[in-house]
């Protein structure tokens, strides 16, 4: 099973490479400057900065009811401490089951 899978992956990879002859190398080093000076004064295009947040910090809550890790945008935490994913909040009609705060906003 696994060997077949690997073979398939390799075939896919070869096909891709054939279609995109100019695809970037998999190696990190893409510039040839082997010993360049530290370019502290160079203003770099901060393109990677935008990708960055997706790379590192995963902001999530732990839903207290379904015990699932949920991205912050899909969860809410009431001031009194009740923290649930929006699916579980819906079960309580977005009214906090402990302090009755309105969490629909």
């Amino acid at each position, binding site marked *: 099973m*696994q060997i077949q899978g690997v073979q398939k992956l390799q075939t896919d990879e070869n096909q891709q490479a054939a279609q995109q002859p100019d695809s970037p190398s998999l190696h*990190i*080093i893409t*510039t*040839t*400057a*082997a*010993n*360049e*000076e*530290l*370019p*502290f004064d*160079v203003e*770099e295009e*901060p393109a*990677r*900065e935008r990708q*960055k*947040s997706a790379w*590192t*910090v*995963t902001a999530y809550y732990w839903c207290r009811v379904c015990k699932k890790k949920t991205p912050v945008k899909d969860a809410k935490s009431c001031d009194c401490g009740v923290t649930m994913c929006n699916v579980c909040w819906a079960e309580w009609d977005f009214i906090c089951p402990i302090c009755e705060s309105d969490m629909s906003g």
Partner: protein
Amino acid sequence: MIIAEQKSFDEIAKMAANFDKVLLLGCNECVTVCLAGGEKEVGVLAASLRLLRKQGDRPLTTLEETITRQCEWEYLDQIEKLAEEADCIISMACGVGVQFVAERFPDKWVIPALNTKSAGGSVQHGVWEERCGLCGECILYKTGGVCPVARCSKRILNGPCGGSQNGKCEVKDVDCIWDQIYKRMAALGRMDWLMEIELEKDWSKARDGGPRKLVREDVMISE
């Protein structure tokens, strides 16, 4: 590999003081390579313990065995008979091995003979250094293959701190790893990567998130 170091002889002798027949169990993996708990060390420790106890009025019988891996039940099964004979097992493996032995032989008292130090490797004869902090989410692709989590005293992700002096860490006699990271990234033409703010790490994937368990359903054998 796992780096371990033998506990002091006095400490081991003290832990074994109440037993008359002990099984010294070595491990053929990491601890053999780092000269802490392989066949040779088993022999030396067994002889030293016997010698010490001969001087007192309570001689000690030792059984010696070294198995392929203590962290796998398959190999522990092979020493079942031997384990039965002994009052206690002195495991000369890392902390993982000790616990597998304890789980496999629940009615036996188990003594750890080693202190488990780190995940690392040998950099010269007789010197082993830590390399991996087992943080659960590898960031080596951002730091030129040099790990600040394991090798920076403050595990800083945007280093180096002000305690870096001539390439050395002020905390202890090791290289400032951020000095190394900078040099390496510069050499690779990747200084711009280091100018970006590395954001807070997800420590829940490290030990901070609680004991870790890896499940791979694709290789599990279902009933």
